[in-house]
């Protein structure tokens, strides 16, 4: 099973002829992702070579989805054009097949562009947006799998732990921690560190709860906002699987932007302390140090009779 992305999902790449797009498309093919082509306006009809094989390029997402029946798209379009790329993909998936997953990797999209794009996507209930400013989503398979994004594929293995995180490299850290106790991953979702994004923690928790492959969940938060607190409160009522959590930014000074646009504490709201407390109140087992995530997860699995 896994969530949202099956290991053989058909994937398009928006911005496939650009430097970033081509580099990562190649890495995705190398991992085993079923890339079916890409989209770059003005370059339709051409092909790009990935891992020695030619892949078709279309001018528009409508054409690309009609031709390939793609399940998902991943966006490597520069910030000025990224919100429009999200909306084009959402419109095309909605019109052509009524559903689809849009993964946006791009960092640095203006917030007001995202307000518009998220509202646009929400008007198309069959379409799911993941990101922006995120590492993407990966469902490791028996043989390769679906890696849709920029994460290093080789650190993953198919398994039963679902991972959801705002941060990129911290997600990799969490993956490595599951591997350190001989557990693989069902699906890992990077929801991104921007203030306005698509899929949030709660949707991920709900999907992991419903997914038979997932036995336990690792949730990694960050300072800023109150998405973690809301997710914790929701999980207390709705999630029966063990959850292990960590929140980055306990030492971040208030009012400073820490790399991620969302990682800023204003006026004492959204501190790591508040979030850890919310996690603990919801029965989420917390690691105060990401290097302990593996040990805490192992304890939780044992307590649930899963090890």
């Amino acid at each position, binding site marked *: 099973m896994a969530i949202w992305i099956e290991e053989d999902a058909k994937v398009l790449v928006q911005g496939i002829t650009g430097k970033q797009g081509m580099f990562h498309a190649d890495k995705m093919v190398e991992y085993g992702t079923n890339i079916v082509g890409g989209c770059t306006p003005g370059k339709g009809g051409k092909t790009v070579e990935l891992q020695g094989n030619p892949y078709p390029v279309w001018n528009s997402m409508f054409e690309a989805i009609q031709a390939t029946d793609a399940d998902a798209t991943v966006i490597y379009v520069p*910030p*000025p054009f990224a919100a429009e790329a999200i909306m084009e993909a959402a419109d095309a998936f909605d019109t052509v097949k009524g559903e689809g997953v849009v993964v946006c990797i791009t960092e*640095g*999209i*203006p*917030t*007001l562009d*995202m*307000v*518009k794009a*998220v*509202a646009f996507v929400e*008007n198309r209930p069959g379409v799911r947006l993941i990101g922006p400013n995120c*590492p993407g989503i990966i469902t490791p398979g028996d043989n390769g799998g679906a890696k849709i994004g*920029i*994460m*290093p594929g*080789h*650190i993953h293995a198919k398994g039963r732990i679902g991972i959801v*995180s705002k*941060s*990129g*490299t*911290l*997600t*990799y*850290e969490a993956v*490595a921690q599951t591997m350190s106790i001989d557990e693989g991953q069902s699906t890992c979702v990077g929801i991104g*560190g921007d*203030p*306005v994004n698509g899929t949030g923690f709660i949707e991920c928790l709900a999907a992991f709860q419903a997914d038979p492959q997932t036995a336990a969940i690792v949730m*990694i938060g*960050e300072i*800023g*906002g*109150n*998405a973690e607190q809301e997710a914790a409160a929701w999980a207390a009522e709705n999630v029966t699987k063990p959850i292990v959590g*960590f929140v*980055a*930014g*306990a*030492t*971040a*000074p208030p*009012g*400073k*932007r*820490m*790399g*991620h*646009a969302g*990682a800023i504490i204003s*006026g*004492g709201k959204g501190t*790591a302390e508040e979030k850890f407390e919310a996690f603990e109140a919801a029965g989420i087992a917390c690691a*105060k*140090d*990401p*290097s*302990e995530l593996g040990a805490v997860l192992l304890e939780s699995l044992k307590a649930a009779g899963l090890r």
Partner: protein
Amino acid sequence: MNIHEYQGKALLKAHGVPVPEGVHCTSVEDALNAYDSLGSKVVAVKSQIHAGGRGKGTLFNPTSRDHVMDGGVKIAFSKDEVKTYATNILGNLLVTIQTGDEGKVVNNLYIEAGCDIAHEYYLAILVDRENKAVLIMASTEGGMDIEHVAETTPEKIHKISVDPNAGLLGYQKRDLGLDLGLQGTALKSFMKSLTSMYNMFLNNDCAMVEINPLVKTGDDQIVALDAKISFDENAEFRHKTWDELRDLSEEEDVEIRAKETGLSYVKLDGNIGCLVNGAGLAMATMDVIKLYGGEPANFLDVGGGANEEQVKTAFSIILEDPNVKGILVNIFGGIMRCDIIARGVIAATEALSLDVPLVVRLAGTNVDEGKAILAASELNIHPADDLAEGAQRIVELIGGVA
């Protein structure tokens, strides 16, 4: 990116929001001329710095730290008073609740015509991350600390959320005005000003607009008496004028240089420098250093695809801080290869003749190659296998708990 009040008011005025007449000054002479040209007997003499709490702040001599004057915003009733206040403010250090003890040197002054105030309100426009929409927040408790109002009398804060598909609607503006107790001419003036402020917010890609106070005058006009405006830096590419509005003296020189090299750096007060890839992992690294009894000297994210040169720049920026007694490098290589980081670390330590302890934790892509490169070097580099080990090691090496 923050701008000064006088710049914010110019933007508001350009969009049709009423603001008092005012003149931006950089010298006492300017201020005196401004007083004459405004033709108002009563004027406000306002320090221009990128921090709140100016009115309740204190001015000090920047070298001797001697007390100069209480209050960074003064009401002057004569030209002589303008002279006194301008002299006391310009070139001196203003310490407010938001600047920290180091304060900020005031280089800019705003002289503004007095205003006949009947009531003070609070108004803010910002992006609400929970609702993923623009939020407008207003209160009858103007001139006060809004966080205090939110805590003690939350019923006095009124909010409207703007549907991105529909935009700001007439009934929302009217309801908000009525919530503030406005009627007749004042209500009309409020609705018109609110439309203009909302348009300014959108047109300028603002992150936040805060007007505290927004006032009702004796003749029922709504006027913006203060303006705290910040822009969303992600939108800089479509705003060519931001370069002119940017006051570089308000930003940390080293943070600007880091940004130019594609690094994200924030200076902190501790003594362990950190060099990390990824914002979340960089924050986690700081947290773990603290967990094991150390204090991080900085946040530094080298990004997803740093090269040797950037790693070198990152080291030199960390070492500029005289408090740094040791450095922890924490890299989880995804796109970034550990062998490249290892070469960058060696090049940097050689070029900068590093003399503080260095702990390097590498994981991910090409980790074995990276570790081999570090092990083969003659340099005094301590390897670590995970973050906890790395943090413990660097705290030990600088002589224990800070």
